[in-house]
């Protein structure tokens, strides 16, 4: 296998608040190959967005990366200066945010904003820059692109704005794009169009994609592998179909079971009791243990990631396996 474009090892991002230390991301590791799409799934507060922000070095005080390594094309990012990071952000790794209204500057035309993004990393003539911008808008499915370059964000619909944000992220053909719930605010018909396009774009350009989402169905139709986050850590990861068909971690199993799409109409859904724990006062050991019907005394200590057949889970009592993980 070739070297991964992105390699994250034991990443921990903590927030030092007045109320205490919030371990938003706690020991996250994964690899991403060229052109690969990984889904990062979890509920609100599970740390998926902070993981994405950490990859781009966008974590602001009181938060900071306290441990771990992020290697992009072999370069360690966590020790880089802000200036060196800026030179990579947008060129080698870029991000698409959930809310395209907040991402785009309302005072500039789409063309001006795309020009700024190009100028940040390259010297191009006005004509070449415009051609590149129009070309990318066409690629993401915006009709009559060169005319639309002169339009302002408010003249676009939500779906079209998100396409513009995607086009901007693609301007420099980055090796990795982190997409943070980019279709959550959109209608299903528009979401389907964008998912479809992103999958093709990743395939064509070789850009690796991290798709952050709370929606298992969305990532299952897009990503070839999944990582499920709970309370700041990845509790299960592996190839999408395998992980969804045959989940090992009780939390993953619970998430799948609680989807109405997997149940018979009218029948009560499987529910995970309780709520996600506060990151300020995580239980000792496995953070899911208080909500887990498989938990035992042993879950008072934190399980390590068990790796097997290209997948992994952090649980002593995995679902669908008769034998528990040996002590």
């Amino acid at each position: 296998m070739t070297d991964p474009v992105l390699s994250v090892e034991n990443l921990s991002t903590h927030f030092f608040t007045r109320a205490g230390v919030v371990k938003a991301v706690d020991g996250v590791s994964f690899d991403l190959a060229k052109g690969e799409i990984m889904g990062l799934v979890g509920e609100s507060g599970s740390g998926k967005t902070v993981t994405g922000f950490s990859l781009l070095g966008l974590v602001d005080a009181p938060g900071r990366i306290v441990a771990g390594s992020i290697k992009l094309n072999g370069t360690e990012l966590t020790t880089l200066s802000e200036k060196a990071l800026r030179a990579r952000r947008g060129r080698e790794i870029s991000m698409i945010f959930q809310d395209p209204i907040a991402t785009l500057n309302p005072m500039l035309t789409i063309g001006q904003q795309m020009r700024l993004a190009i100028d940040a990393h390259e010297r191009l003539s006005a004509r070449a820059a415009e051609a590149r911008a129009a070309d990318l808008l066409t690629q993401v499915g915006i009709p009559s692109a060169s005319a639309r370059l002169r339009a302002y964000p408010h003249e676009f619909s939500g779906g079209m704005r998100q396409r513009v944000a995607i086009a901007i992220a693609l301007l420099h053909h980055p090796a990795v794009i982190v997409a943070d719930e980019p279709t959550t605010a959109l209608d299903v018909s528009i979401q389907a169009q964008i998912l479809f396009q992103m999958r093709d774009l990743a395939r064509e350009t070789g850009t690796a994609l991290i798709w952050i989402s709370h929606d298992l169905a969305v990532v299952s139709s897009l990503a070839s592998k999944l990582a499920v986050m709970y309370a700041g850590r990845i509790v299960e990861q592996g190839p999408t179909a395998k992980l969804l068909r045959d989940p090992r971690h009780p939390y993953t199993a619970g998430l799948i079971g609680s989807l109405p799409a997997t149940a018979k109409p009218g029948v009560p859904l499987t529910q995970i009791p309780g709520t996600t724990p506060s990151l300020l006062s995580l239980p000792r050991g496995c953070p899911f243990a208080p909500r887990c019907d498989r938990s035992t005394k042993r879950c008072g200590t934190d399980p390590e990631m068990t790796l097997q057949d290209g997948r992994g889970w952090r649980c002593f009592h995995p679902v669908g396996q008769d034998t528990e993980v040996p002590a």
Partner: protein
Amino acid sequence: MSAFLTVDNVSRLFGPNLSTGEKIAAKLGAKVETRSVRAVSDVTLSVHKGETLGLVGESGCGKSTLGRVIAGILPPTSGTVAIDGAPVMENGSKITTRVQTVFQDPFASLDPRMKVGDTVAEGPIAHGLTNKSEAGRYVSKWFERVGLDPVWVDRYPHQFSGGQRQRIAIARALAMQPDVLICDEPVASLDVSIQAQIINLFLELTRDLKLTSVFISHDLSVVQHVSDRVAVMYLGRIVELGPVAQVFGTPAHPYTAALFGSVPKLVLDAEELVYFDTIEGEVPSPLAPPTGCYFHPRCPLSSEICSVTQPLIQPVSDLRAVACHHFKSQLADNVSH
């Protein structure tokens, strides 16, 4: 079975708020922008006692406006809503407590400065369902009913999680002892695991209290799970109506088919990633809807007649109705797929 909740030919328009000066100017013949949006257009439907009707559609299709008109929160521009024959509104104000609403955002729908117990007790006291001395016991009963600990009545909304707040909102609605419950995206802002808890609570309560309900959601899988029948809306009109299994299984309207086709499915057994169908283009502006059938510019089945004549909603079978010139082709299409 007879209709319990009836919505008869309801339309709701939203126009610009004109200032007095503008009104006078318009009277004198000046050009003042008076275009209005038909958020809900000629909707007729009925819900049987104890039935749950799902209302689905994309943003801006008018499903929330219709929900608010049925709940008596917004007066309709024309048409009537009645429960068991009695109108919900008279002269623009609500005259019944028999219909109550649970809203999408439990952060906005609860008064942050009011103890949650008082929030739940306010309506029943005002309408004589309980009195001040009995209110404590009355509220506790409803707290227990929705799975909340009654010792929490003295807390404020910020002390609760999203799921708990939605339970409080449900308790507030049910404490009015309604016959009809309107749920406007009640689980849209909740995490999946909490969403399942609220859906289960909804199923249990509507069954036990024999509630008639309208469940509004953009999430088709949620609607499919909780509803008996479903109405699909597009640009203010109902384009298809029928039993959930039939509408979801064999859609008669091309929009319904396209909408279901674009929902990402949980891919459980395919090693190869699936391709799902997508609808071309976007929902047109309701300020300037297309001529004829509103869906025709995006419709794979559209023909000449579709751009000229608006299709009326007509029965397909005893239980189903659809507004499409080519529903027979659509039904045949389903079979061939």
